[in-house]
């Protein structure tokens, strides 16, 4: 009897709360599936980027934490193993032949081995990783500042973005890639990391090289980086939106 009433009340509540959504939701769903409305919604991304860049000093640093703040478990999200034969070969050889090539719109393209990258002055930072899903984890990253590599290759004046080509491929054979504005490559905390919490990067976290781009969300932190290409425009690369997740509908500007 009492149970029935609870169910009844729940149904009533569900009905009342759902009434508005019953009318509005199909409308919202239709709008989401079209193209014109999402293109209006995406205008907010440009506004957010414009405002955030205007009010954030170019070199303002992300908060750096203490050793005691490090997450006991740093979740590995997205792809956790590229799974290709080529990559498995690199794992077997402990990445001794892994090269990171920086080219595209630069004066002098250079390829660095993992050992060569480790010869650059390293930067270690304990920072917070904010996933687009909502969770955060704190880890200690060590790597080479990307700005130092940029100063070696010298970008041409028409280079606007750095595109990160990765070793991982999804179930449908789509290769992972990411991109960032050239200006963000020079941020002191933007590093190509090869260590997490004092140990060489493991496969789930992007071995041997992953990007740390501390002022944006987790999906921008490209793993398994093989090649960095400087370009003038992102259109023409894969889906044209500047990244694997961007091609799936996520914002390219992931500052929030």
């Amino acid at each position, binding site marked *: 009897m009492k149970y029935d009433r609870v169910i009844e009340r*729940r149904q009533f509540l*569900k009905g009342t*709360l*759902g009434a*508005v*959504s*019953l009318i*509005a*939701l199909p409308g*919202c*769903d239709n709008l*989401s599936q079209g193209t014109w409305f*999402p293109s*209006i*919604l*995406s*205008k*907010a*991304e440009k*506004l*957010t980027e414009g405002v*955030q860049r205007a*009010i*954030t*000093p170019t070199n*303002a*640093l*992300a*908060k750096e*934490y203490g050793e005691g*703040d490090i*997450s*006991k*478990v740093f*979740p590995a999200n997205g792809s956790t193993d590229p799974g290709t034969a080529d990559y498995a070969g690199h794992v077997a050889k402990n990445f001794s032949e892994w090269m990171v090539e920086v080219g595209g719109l630069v004066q002098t393209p250079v390829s660095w081995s993992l050992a060569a990258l480790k010869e650059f002055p390293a930067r270690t930072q304990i920072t*917070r990783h*904010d*996933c*687009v*899903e*909502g*969770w*955060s*984890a*704190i880890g200690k990253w060590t790597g080479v500042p990307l700005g130092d590599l940029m100063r070696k290759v010298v970008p041409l004046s028409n280079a606007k973005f750095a595109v990160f080509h990765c070793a991982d491929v999804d179930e449908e054979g789509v290769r992972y890639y990411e991109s960032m504005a050239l200006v963000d490559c020079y941020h002191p905390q933007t590093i190509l990391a090869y260590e997490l919490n004092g140990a060489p990067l493991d496969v789930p976290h992007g071995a041997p090289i992953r990007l740390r781009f*501390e*002022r*944006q*969300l987790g999906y921008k932190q490209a793993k398994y980086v093989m090649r960095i290409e400087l370009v003038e425009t992102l259109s023409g690369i894969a889906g044209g939106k500047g990244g694997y*997740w961007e091609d*799936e*509908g*996520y*914002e390219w500007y992931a*500052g*929030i």
Partner: protein
Amino acid sequence: MVSVKNQRTKIDRGEEAEQVPGLAKVVETPFKESQALTVNQPDDPTARSASPPLRERVYRHRLPVRISHWLNVPCLFILIMSGFQIFNAHPALYWGDRSDRDQPLLSIRPIRVENGEMRGVTTILGYKFDTTGVLGYSDASRRAFPAWATIPSAKSLAMGRQWHLFFAWLLVINGLFFATYSLISRHASRDLAPTGKDLRGIGQAIKNHIALRHPKGAEAKRYNVLQKLAYILILCVVAPLMILTGLAMSPTIDTAFPWLLMIFGGRQAARMVHFIACFSFVGFIVVHVAEVILTGFYNNIRSMVTGWFVVKHEHEGSSHEI
């Protein structure tokens, strides 16, 4: 002094007009012109005793307030529902900077029980509640908030974020417009700020609200003290909290304004406060809509659409006022 204009009788009452300045004072009678003249003739006591309650029309909400109010409606619905979509991507809340997955303060999860059946379980501070059908597991799908409560209804974090961030901007721009207008037009100081007399009457106002007794006559022309406090709480506390916690979740904004993380106690704490502020909005909307219905649905809706609100004066009250 009474002058008749198209069934509306304009009256001049110096003191009343002072209390709610800027509001036009018009009395409307349900009678035809000729009858209205007779009814409102103060020297005719027989006519007075026969007349029905007087209807006074007041211009209660000015255009900028009305526009701002109606823009809030879709913005809030979309923000709440797309917010639930975003929450569904990681349906747990924590305090501090990290999300240590073994110790959430709140989580909404689908769980398979012994007989193989799926149940939705909401855990708050370690206490578990079976919320199957609404939270955690609904309509044969594993999701924290059910499809009817999210935008879009299907699982899509990317689309949920697009809706959320667009309408967040719209709400903020609308809020800035309303705040500027309210300060310049003195809507804030005149209509929203409670007076000393208001605050002294708060005990009685609470009793009246609990008994569902609402202000009538001249008192119904202005916001009552609880109404004023509710609006002020939402405008000056909950809405700013919502915006600041939203910004505190932005890794870029955190570098520009590190104090945001300090005041909320970390990014995950800010996410939790954002969620609490969301449910404060939900609570406000429920009470607000209930009051709109209880105090005259049609009259209230009309006043928020056209600006004009009708106040009925009981016979004794209205006769001495005129």
